[in-house]
């Protein structure tokens, strides 16, 4: 029983093993690789359509950061993305896969519209806080439906949130065409709201207090997740719901709460976009911000400060693409494929980084 055969030749081979512990530097590297890969694939598409890639990307950069006005436009573009990004950060930290940022964004926009129409006579200092609360409530309620179904009946939240996106899109389209329609417009959009509903602007520019609001939210999300017992519980159910339950964390309640917070953030994004930029509800009020928000959260490593960087990046990409289209005839739609490729590589990187290659001894 005890005789071990020690005379065997010991060889080594490379083996892929799972690693339990995350290395933040590798995570960062993964993000950079995904980013570069996205831009490279974009370059291939540009070149294959007969345009010079450096010229196109040059125009894109110029459009995003070339002038103070361009920078401001990029910041404006990044703001809704940061809201929806934060929404995804909160949900994903609890491993609740809220894919409904888009729908919650629209719910917030619709609540803002409703309040803006009904209470237009209130003075601005009272109306603006009401708008903020209404937008958050709209998003929270729409996310809460999925949260409740998931928490109480274990209904998959991915499916529910995706379906809720469609539902609210159609509800919004119906209301816009039948009740809130601007009689002066042939396009399905609401009337322009009274100035009392406007978010006050900053530095006499197009920038508005939505920017301050979103930065405050970054800080609040950080504090919530890492400095409060509630955030501790959200992260705990994300890491190990069984252990959380064994130590008395109310998993059902925490799931619901996570979805409410996540939805409120996305909803506020929708409200900000109306009260800060468009001042009316339009069918295309969200250019897929809810979905890009998922990308922002993932590229930001589910960290609220990381999400700022990611939101500015995607904001710049979108904003710069207009100049790129004008200057080098590369269509704006290219940005979507770049985003898609980045997501693709990010997801791969997230799986790959769970493994590492190790030398192991084998005996032949």
């Amino acid at each position, binding site marked *: *029983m*005890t*005789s*071990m*055969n020690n005379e*065997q030749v010991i060889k080594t081979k490379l083996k892929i093993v799972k690693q*339990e*512990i*995350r290395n933040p530097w590798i995570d960062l590297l993964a993000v950079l690789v995904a980013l570069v890969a996205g831009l490279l694939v974009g370059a291939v598409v540009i070149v294959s359509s007969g345009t010079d890639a450096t010229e196109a990307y040059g125009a894109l950069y110029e459009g995003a950061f070339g002038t103070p006005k361009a920078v401001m436009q990029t910041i404006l573009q990044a703001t809704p993305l940061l809201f929806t990004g934060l929404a995804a950060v909160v949900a994903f930290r609890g491993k609740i896969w809220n894919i409904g940022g888009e729908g919650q964004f629209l719910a917030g926009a619709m609540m803002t519209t409703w309040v803006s129409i009904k209470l237009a006579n209130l003075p601005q200092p009272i109306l603006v806080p009401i708008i903020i609360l209404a937008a958050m409530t709209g998003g929270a309620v729409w996310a809460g439906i999925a949260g409740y179904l998931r928490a109480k009946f274990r209904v998959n939240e991915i499916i529910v949130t995706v379906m809720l996106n469609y539902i609210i899109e159609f509800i919004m389209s119906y209301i816009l065409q039948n009740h809130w329609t601007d009689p002066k417009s042939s396009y399905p959009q609401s009337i322009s709201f009274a100035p009392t509903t406007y978010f006050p602007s900053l530095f006499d520019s197009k920038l508005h207090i939505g920017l301050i609001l979103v930065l405050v939210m970054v800080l609040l999300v950080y*504090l919530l997740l890492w*400095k*409060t*017992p509630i955030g*501790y*519980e959200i*992260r*705990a159910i994300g*890491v*190990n719901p*069984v*252990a*959380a*339950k*064994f*130590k*008395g*964390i*109310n998993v059902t309640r925490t799931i619901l709460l996570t979805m409410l917070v996540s939805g409120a953030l996305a909803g506020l994004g929708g409200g900000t976009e109306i009260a800060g930029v468009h001042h009316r509800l339009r069918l295309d009020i969200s250019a897929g911000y809810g979905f890009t928000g998922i990308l922002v959260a993932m590229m930001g490593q589910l960290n609220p400060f990381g999400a700022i960087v990611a939101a500015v990046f995607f904001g710049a990409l979108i904003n710069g693409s207009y100049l790129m289209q004008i200057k080098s005839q590369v269509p704006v739609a290219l940005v979507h494929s770049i985003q898609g490729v980045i997501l693709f590589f990010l997801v791969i990187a997230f799986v790959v980084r769970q493994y590492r290659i190790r030398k192991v001894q084998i*005996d032949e």
Partner: protein
Amino acid sequence: MSAIQDSSVVLEVSNLNKCFGNFVANDQINFNLTAGEIHCLLGENGAGKSTFAKCLYGAYHQDTGTVKVNGFDVKFNSPRDAIHHGIGMVHQHFVLVPTMTVVENIVVGVEKSGISTGIKDAAKKVVALSEKFGVELDPHALVANLAVGQQQWVEILKALFSGVEILILDEPTAALTPQESEQLFSIIKKMTMDGTSVIFITHKLNEVMQVSDRITIFRKGKKVGSVKTSTTNKIELATLMVGRGVHFEVEKETLEPGTLVMEIRDLSASSKDKRESLKSINLSIYQNEILGIAGVGGNGQSELFDAIIGIHPISGGNIYLNGDEITRLKTAKILGKGLASIPSDRMTQGLLLEFTVAENLILGSQWVSPFKSGILLKEKEIIKNAENLIKEYEIATSGPEQVAARLSGGNLQKLILARELSRDITCVMANCPTRGLDVGAIEYVHQRLVELRDQGIGVMLISEDLDEIFNVADRIAVIYQGKIMGEFKTNQTSREQIGLLMAGVTEGIK
């Protein structure tokens, strides 16, 4: 019996070793299987029998050791290789496509059969085989609509279709009704008449005695014996399974039990599949006393633990802690009343491996001062708490900020002990607190439990390890199929008596 002795060895394993990191799952296993034999692998959860089977099936690669099939050395890189050599395995969780029919599932698994022509032939063959083995099965029924026993039969058919000569069944009766189990046994017996050999993995003693020709017993990764079924009995098997090896004796002075800490009255519970998992359990835990709950794994220990902390639904009875009723309270409330809980699976039930040591040490206390003030967590207090506990419990870690996943098994358990025992507690419940630990860590846990008892805390120790129970407990209750079979003072009973009760034998106690 003579048939077995005469027949040739179809599978021979020598000195097989398999480690996962530092954990030795299989230690120098020797094993052989003869043609037409039903060979049981018996052992506790985590004894290494499934690991061993997976090495035979090519799902794992052994670190060292040889496997011979029909006298030839083989080396499997995948289950596919194993099937080529005539070795098939039916897993505990079936790998069937529920939206496909029986025959489609079977054809998918078998190579070289053209789908269109294959289906008709296969369907005929399925009918013929099912008739032969006495199973009712429509080859065109959807798998999703089949009973569990029928699904298992489909799995076995898959193996038969791929020409398997050695069939490994991993805990095949776990999900079956008693009737289905009986049918399975008759199927297996018929198969062996055709020369197929069967390796049957289980921890249920009744089944072993009923179905097998030979039994190999695993314990803590080692093979502790191979016996002919006709020459053994349940009691011998139970003792082999739970072991009576030399253990470190724990220094313990005699103490008189103090006041009642926890009382469990007529506690009943049912599991999800409506099976009664706990049947009218009565237990009392006193100060200055360790109550050991002995039993073979899967006899209701986890359900009892979970029911007390409010996770498993209770269908009847009452639980009192320090005189207050805690039946059906929320987990946080129950634990907050002074109950420390050390769950059996420290990785999944006890800790947040991706959290830091400091964060893990406040799990469950995140709403309690001094760790919280106002709505914020107090980081300073959390770190200070961790620094103190790391010192007091000798946790080997680089500091409070280290991620828990980096700690060794023994230190993970210390982390749980530190967290649970540093609270204001009157009662400790520990479920298999030394499972998978090395000798040093086991000793540490035992000493801690005895210290708690000496301090006047009531301790309940659930363990599948009889040595541990006899070493540490002052009083022993035996659990079998969700029932308490008897309760004894440790110095007034014997391993034989406890072993018999663990096997469910109540008659003929000496």
